[in-house]
């Protein structure tokens, strides 16, 4: 760990033990440029930003890439998802102490039990992709919430598209 990063850590722990936010910020920051290598000294966070190991730190680093989205009844990782998961993989490579859960979700237009199985399949697809990028499988938990925890509350295509998701959530 280089000195700059250590400073960030100190500042972060001194300034804020703020919320262990489990949901994404309301206005998502733009996706960051992928860091070329894991040894790059400057992570994409401000010196006064949130603490490593918090969801805020993760979200500040990868932006909207904390969550990937799926088509109706699908669980494949498309090119947009792949880019997001690559951003996640770089973050997790940079902070190997961080463990996390991938929460799989479905939209409300499915039966309850099938959606639980579908959410599991989506979260596992995201996990497998991250593992293929070098993230140790032991760091990743998977849980499905089916259609039980929507983030978008309307009953229309736009809301359903937001709810068909696999969200990576920092757990330590």
């Amino acid at each position, binding site marked *: 760990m280089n000195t700059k990063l250590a400073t960030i850590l100190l500042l972060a722990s001194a300034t804020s033990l703020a919320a262990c936010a489990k949901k994404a910020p309301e206005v998502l920051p733009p996706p960051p440029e992928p860091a070329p290598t894991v040894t790059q000294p400057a992570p994409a966070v401000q010196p006064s930003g949130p603490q490593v190991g918090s969801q805020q730190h993760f979200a500040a680093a990868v932006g909207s890439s904390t969550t990937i989205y799926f088509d109706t*009844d699908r669980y494949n990782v498309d090119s947009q998802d792949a880019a997001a998961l690559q951003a996640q993989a770089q973050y997790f490579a940079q902070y190997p102490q961080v463990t996390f859960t991938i929460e799989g979700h479905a939209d*409300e*237009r499915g*039966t*309850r*039990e*099938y959606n*639980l*199985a*579908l959410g*599991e*399949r989506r*979260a*596992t*697809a995201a*996990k*497998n992709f991250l593992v293929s990028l070098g993230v140790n499988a032991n760091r990743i938990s*998977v*849980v*499905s919430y*089916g259609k*039980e*925890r*929507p*983030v978008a*509350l*309307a*009953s229309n295509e736009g809301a359903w598209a937001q709810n068909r998701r696999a969200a990576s959530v920092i757990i330590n």
Partner: protein
Amino acid sequence: MKPALLAALLLTAAMPATGIAQDLGAPISEDGRVETTATDASAAQAEEGISFTVTDENAWSDIGIAIPAFATDRERPTPANEGGTGALGREVARVITANLRNNGLFKPVGPDSLPQPAFNQITAPAFSTWSGRSAEMLVHGYVRARDDGKLVVGCYLYDVALQDELVREGWVVGPADWRRAAHKCSDLIFSRLTGESPFFDSRIAYIAETGPKDRRVKRLAIMDSDGANHRFLTLGSATALTPRYSPDYSKILYLSYVDGNPRIYVYDIGSGKQTLVSENRNPTIAPRWSPDGRFILYSMAVAGNTDIYRVPATGGASVKLTDNPGIDVGGSYSPDGSKIVFESDRSGSQQCYVMNADGTNQKRISFFGGRCATPEWSPRGDQIAFTRIAGDFNIAVMNTGGGNMRVLTRGWQDEAPTWAPNGRIIQFFRTERNTGRSGIWQVDLTGQNERRLPTPVDASDPAWGPIRP
């Protein structure tokens, strides 16, 4: 489970220690048998039964039935009603009237608009009084408080035109169980007049829902078939889903997130203890009982892929019944236990399949348009109810080969059918568009008599138990 009536009075007992029961409320009594008192009339009822098929349902509903207040031999106080046994007799008649009316059966007229017979008229009705009221059938009954505090409830069905008794039966119940006597009487009337099996004296496990759509609290709950005697079984700190009553009502299978992951627990109603259906790290969903209660089906995701497993209800090794890269989930046994209908998306979308109980000979049966989900085999064996997804979600039935599909409901999202114990009525839950609010509804096999069940809060995942002993 024989001392259940006593156990009902001991509800304040401390919750037994259990390592995983963080979300459980106080346990409730196990379900008991209603003692039948000796009467001499009911032997010849079967062959005299007026048999109707489901398509003749209108013929039932035309039968006028007068149900005046039940009499009492003498006014006595009872914990069942603060007005005493006389007031209780009126309540019993009201419950019977509501049962028959709410299910579209017959044309019942209740005690509030009828004269009250005296106790000595229960076995000797004043038929002239009732024939003038266009009542074809007449229900009489009485309530008597015994010295030991128990109630004796007698139930008599008369044909007014024939001036003849059709059937009679009596039950001994604890004061807390007085409604069961009313349900038993309802079942006696229903079965005698239709030739069908009874269903009123049964219970429903379901999920009670409160709170906004994105922070819904989902609790395990139970109620009688008419919505009475509602109880919450879990506290709501963990999401509970998809309950199933065991065939003897002693246990409930359900899914809980109490440890953070979706897992199936076997909740013992009498002891308040619960155990995992399968001790491993994988998520388990969609629990089902075999008809004899000896086996449990559950679905388990391993490395993201969900298949159906069977485990003895007493514990032991699980057997994997499906082995397919698609999602195989749910499962419902035929009444004889020989076959299982389940859903799978192995063809690319949710469809219904039948296999032998050992997992062999898996065959798709749904080939109509749309998707087939949450299949449930009728207790009569002849039909399978399911969620049909074709744009909207509707409740439908088909025969066991997948033929003769009939859509019964037209909600925006109706799902998860469960059968009445006699296979004549289906309950399901209906979710409102946008608000996400849900309620339990029922419909009969003709698609008629659709109605919402009264529940204290929103409700989903109804699971109708068998007729009670």
